[in-house]
């Protein structure tokens, strides 16, 4: 089997296919639809020190063959991320740090 591993900023990924930030949130929602074992990794949405409410709606508008969005970095903050979301992501780790 071809070795597709790549090393970026000191982290080794099994392959160079990463879900981009904003396309996968923290992974949970897509776990029923995507086999994460086939991915090199996923980039979570932004996590800030403190929670951010994000922008008032509307936040998205569809364009020809695309969309624009301005979510405003809505996120629960690092503490909630660590307690609520990290337990799901932790077993997905295969990279060697």
């Amino acid at each position, binding site marked *: 089997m071809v070795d597709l591993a790549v090393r970026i900023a000191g982290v080794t990924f099994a392959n160079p296919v990463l879900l981009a930030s904003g396309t996968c949130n923290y992974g949970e929602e897509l776990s029923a639809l995507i086999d994460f074992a086939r991915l090199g990794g996923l980039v979570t949405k932004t996590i800030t020190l403190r929670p951010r409410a994000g922008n008032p709606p509307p936040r998205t508008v569809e364009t020809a063959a695309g969309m624009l969005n301005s979510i405003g970095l*809505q996120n629960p903050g690092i503490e909630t991320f660590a307690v609520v979301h990290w337990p799901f992501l932790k077993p997905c780790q295969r990279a060697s740090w």
Partner: protein
Amino acid sequence: MSAAIEDGLARVVASAQVAEAVQHTGLAAPWVAARAVPGQFVQLRVSTGLSPLLRLPLSIAGVDAARGLIEVIYAVVGPKTALLGRMSVGTAVGCLGPLGHGFEVRASRPRAVLVGGGVGLAPLLYLGSSLRALGQPTVLLAGARTGRQHLPEFLLARAADRVLRSSDDGSVGHRGPVTDLLADELEGGCGVYACGPRAMLREVAARCRSRGAPCQVSVEEYMACGLGVCMGCAVAVRAPGPAPAHGRYQRACVEGPVFAADALDWEDHG
């Protein structure tokens, strides 16, 4: 709930115009029909190309679980609804679902009052037939701008023991907003379920609050992914919910589209 979501190819089994610029389409989507509850929706990929790129979110208007069929009812207002409305029987359409948090369906009150405006009636038809199957007496208040935009009797009748109509132009039923009809129905401990334009929902919520009637509303928001990933379909709530539905804004596609009316911040919501 996410474990039950599937993406598959549905097939159009029937499609007909049922009111002015309103289409009624039946889809064979057994994975949705087997699991859906009233108030949930599907995301339909109506194009195999890049435009339109995003899927079309539509409430489920009816389910025949034994035959694996679902129904959608929608206003033909843009490219996606036009594409879907033109699809002939047998056409395949990508169908992701069932999605979202639906209505709490319980036959616990003397009467259920369903209030719908325009194609906001769609999820209420599924809800009404489910409530009736539980033996719940059900009244449907159906509003539209004009008589020609009203859904036909055969669709409304299955959702309620009694149907009252209103139209803005007075051509069918009561002349005025459908919320005018609510006052006479809010008696004797009823439960209210509503779907329609924001202004209508806000008025329904206010009337229910003043009479102490529990009310669930299904909101419509601009929606991109439908899965809770993009955070595009934000809905302002009065008090932050527990994680992961944290913060001032919840997602219409995951925590909703059905919310307790009192949970929403109506000043911010439109």
